[in-house]
């Protein structure tokens, strides 16, 4: 609200300056995040585009920091995404993937998803698919961005204007061609303005596109976790794990044999308390969150919250003692994989070791961070009158429980660059509504489908209400036995020839279970109503 008010003021200011000389561009992309850079790369990889269009990318920050990013061996950024087949294929097609350091990425070959209340479980494996590629590949966002920048270094036709802040956007009287005013005083007039400028998109404010959405009462905590390598008798660290706790899902995503990425969604006070506690406490809590029954997790949550509120946070030994006591009272065998108070794994691993992620030994310093979760989707991908289009997070923000945000953004970019090439082939104006309409039609529906699945999934699993837990658990277990159905689900969402993201498949599985919650809820309440009216 405040933001858009500011936008109007800026626009008014901009109009008075708009008489100054401007440069003519065909496409101006605002935002140098993964989506903006991927669009610039995709356009730059097309000969037709290189020959016929002038493309500029404007970014407020200094991109040389990303260009020269040289992380220490074994250290990983806390922002990593599971790139689906489709995303990887697209990045290969535009010849950007060859600039990504593949040794820093990690394939996901298997996936284990289970219910935190009932422990019912579904497993996905790449071996179900008749393809040699893994289901997905964990890639640090910085690694991808650096690769895209390296790719763009070979494409002089695409100009990158970094360390340039957009001061205002307006258009001259009687014309719908946007004028982008930069803080350097340069004014770019563009045939097509692309907003790849994130959730608080200034381009969206300029184009006057409204959005709908809500913030979940949930924050996510991310970190890079160090752990022991898998034992000699076990597979490599290529399995992703996700446990749905009633407070939110916790995910373990492999980055290397001894490092993995954490995404843990939970209630905001708990996230704040966990983030504030010392790293060893958080590591112990992560191990427990994959292993202890829900009732004990709730107890531990309260313990952490109370200690945080009283200003005397718990020390790691206290929490470990509490976890050990709880394990004993639950009858968890000290030799099973479900015990988390054990520093090393040696010899023959327990039989159930593959069902759980390796024990976290420490968190990489400086990688613990948190952010609020929200659901947001714009009403239109095109600005009124054409010449403005939004991609990536500027268009949609999605619950990260399936790591889909970046994949959706890359799918937007793939579609938009295809539409632009199509328009060029037919002599179209790439900023016209006619050229951009196919993009808006294709992506709005596709994104909306995935986003609503994520939303339903979140709601379905945030309850410990018995009938719902029972229904979703039975559904999950039955499906788990049907390999052919699982394969079909894995292949479905991403089209004919490339399998969907594993998260996406799991989401599709439980999407159908989401209906259960409503059915159970309504029938129970009608029974209650009937009973209470009779007693009157």
């Amino acid at each position, binding site marked *: 609200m405040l933001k858009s008010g500011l936008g109007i003021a800026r626009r008014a200011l901009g109009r008075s300056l708009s008489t100054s000389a401007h440069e*003519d561009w*065909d496409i101006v992309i605002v935002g140098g995040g993964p989506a903006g850079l991927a669009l610039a790369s995709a356009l730059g990889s097309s000969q037709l585009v290189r020959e016929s269009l002038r493309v500029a990318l404007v970014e407020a920050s200094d991109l040389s920091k990303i260009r020269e990013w040289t992380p220490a061996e074994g250290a990983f950024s806390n922002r990593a995404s599971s790139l689906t087949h489709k995303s990887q294929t697209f990045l290969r097609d535009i010849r950007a993937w060859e600039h990504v350091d593949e040794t820093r990425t990690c394939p996901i070959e298997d996936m284990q998803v289970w219910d935190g209340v009932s422990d019912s479980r579904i497993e996905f494996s790449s071996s179900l698919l008749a393809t040699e590629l893994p289901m997905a590949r964990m890639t640090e966002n910085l690694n991808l961005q650096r690769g895209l920048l390296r790719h763009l270094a070979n494409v002089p036709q695409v100009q990158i204007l970094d360390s340039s802040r957009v001061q205002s956007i307006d258009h001259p009287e009687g*014309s719908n*061609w946007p004028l982008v005013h930069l803080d350097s005083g340069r004014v770019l007039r563009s*045939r097509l303005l692309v907003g790849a400028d994130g959730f608080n998109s200034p381009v969206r404010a300029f184009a006057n596109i409204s959005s709908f959405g809500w913030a979940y009462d949930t924050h996510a905590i991310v970190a890079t976790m160090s752990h022991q390598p898998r034992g000699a008798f076990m597979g490599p660290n290529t399995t992703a794990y996700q446990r749905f706790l009633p407070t939110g899902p916790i995910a373990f995503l492999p980055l290397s044999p001894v490092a993995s990425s954490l995404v843990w969604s939970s209630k905001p006070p708990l996230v704040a308390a966990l983030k504030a506690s010392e790293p060893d406490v958080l590591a112990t809590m992560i191990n427990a969150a994959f292993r202890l029954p829900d009732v004990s997790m709730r107890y531990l949550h309260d313990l952490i919250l109370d200690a945080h509120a009283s200003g005397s946070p718990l020390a790691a030994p206290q929490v470990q003692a509490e976890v050990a006591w709880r394990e004993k009272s639950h009858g968890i065998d000290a030799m099973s994989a479900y015990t988390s108070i054990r520093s090393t794994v040696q010899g023959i691993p327990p039989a159930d070791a593959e069902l759980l992620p390796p024990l976290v030994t420490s968190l990489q310093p400086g990688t613990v961070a948190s952010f609020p979760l929200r659901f947001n989707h714009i009403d239109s991908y095109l600005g009124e*009158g*054409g010449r403005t289009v939004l991609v990536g997070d500027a268009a949609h923000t999605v619950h990260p429980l399936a790591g889909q945000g970046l994949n959706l953004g890359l799918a937007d970019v793939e579609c938009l660059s295809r539409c632009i090439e*199509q*328009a060029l*082939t*037919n*002599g*179209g*104006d790439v900023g*016209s*509504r*006619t050229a951009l*309409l*196919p993009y808006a*039609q294709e992506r709005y529906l596709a994104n909306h489908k995935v986003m609503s699945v994520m939303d339903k999934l979140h709601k379905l699993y945030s309850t410990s209400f018995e009938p719902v837990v029972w229904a979703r658990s039975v559904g999950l277990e039955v499906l788990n036995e049907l390999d052919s159905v699982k394969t079909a689900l894995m292949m479905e969402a991403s089209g004919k020839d490339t399998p969907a993201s594993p998260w996406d498949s799991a989401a599709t599985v439980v999407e159908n279970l989401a209906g259960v919650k409503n059915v159970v809820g309504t029938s129970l309440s009608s029974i209650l109503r009937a009973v209470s009216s009779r007693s009157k």
Partner: protein
Amino acid sequence: MFAAAIRRSSTRALVARYSTSTSSVNPAEIAHFSRLSSEWWDESPSGEFSFLHQMNPVRVRFIREKLLEVARDAQENPPLNVLRGMEVLDVGCGGGLLSESLARLGAKTLGIDASEANISIARLHAAQDPGFASSLSYQHTPAEALLAESDKRYDVVCSMEVLEHVDNPTGFLDTCAKLVKPGGHLFLATISRTALAYFLTIFMAEDVLRKVARGTHTHSKFIRPEELTEFFRTYPNTESPWVRGQPTRTQVEVRGMVYNPLSSSWILAPRDAWGADGCNYVFWVRKPNI
């Protein structure tokens, strides 16, 4: 026998209209489009010409692919930007939808229209776009006057969605054909005179859905594709007509254009798709190389 009957009656239809007037320009039609001229570039679904905007990429694709096909007959690997450097005339250019696209593909394009208002709008719109340096120009003139005033002839003459609005189709076709260089191309797009066309373009588009202004189309002025082919069997004379024998794809081609309301887009029907040319269609014919 049946085909021959159609041939005779269609020739009669063309001749009958030819005899009523000698100029092809219909003053009422010009007034109608002049009134709507300010709406030419409104691409929104409520815009008067939104159908044309959606149809335009399909028409351009047909032109480009046909020219490419002809170029491939002449040489092994012709450049893909086949229109680059070609002299193109767009007769009845309206707001310049087609002219701009052809100019963007590198053709030296002249758009002409009998309505002064249309030409003003077309010029105004093109002036906003820095992409057209000298590749695009407009002139307010009927085709007949252009033919009379200069000897300039064109590689490609296009007249899209115009034939159904002229008074004197044979005279108009004759003018367009004369403006084509030997070995050059004539592209037309229009609407067939069928019950389906009446239902879709007049009853639905104008009366029910009100997507197109009432009075835009007159069913009796529609021309069937076989009538056009027939015309060029005897044009310019029976000894050396543009189309002879069983027409081949190197002489003449008709393709239907079908609207898909779900995706609000047009589809170029495959060759010989049965019934696809029952409403909107594109027509191409090549002038013999003498």
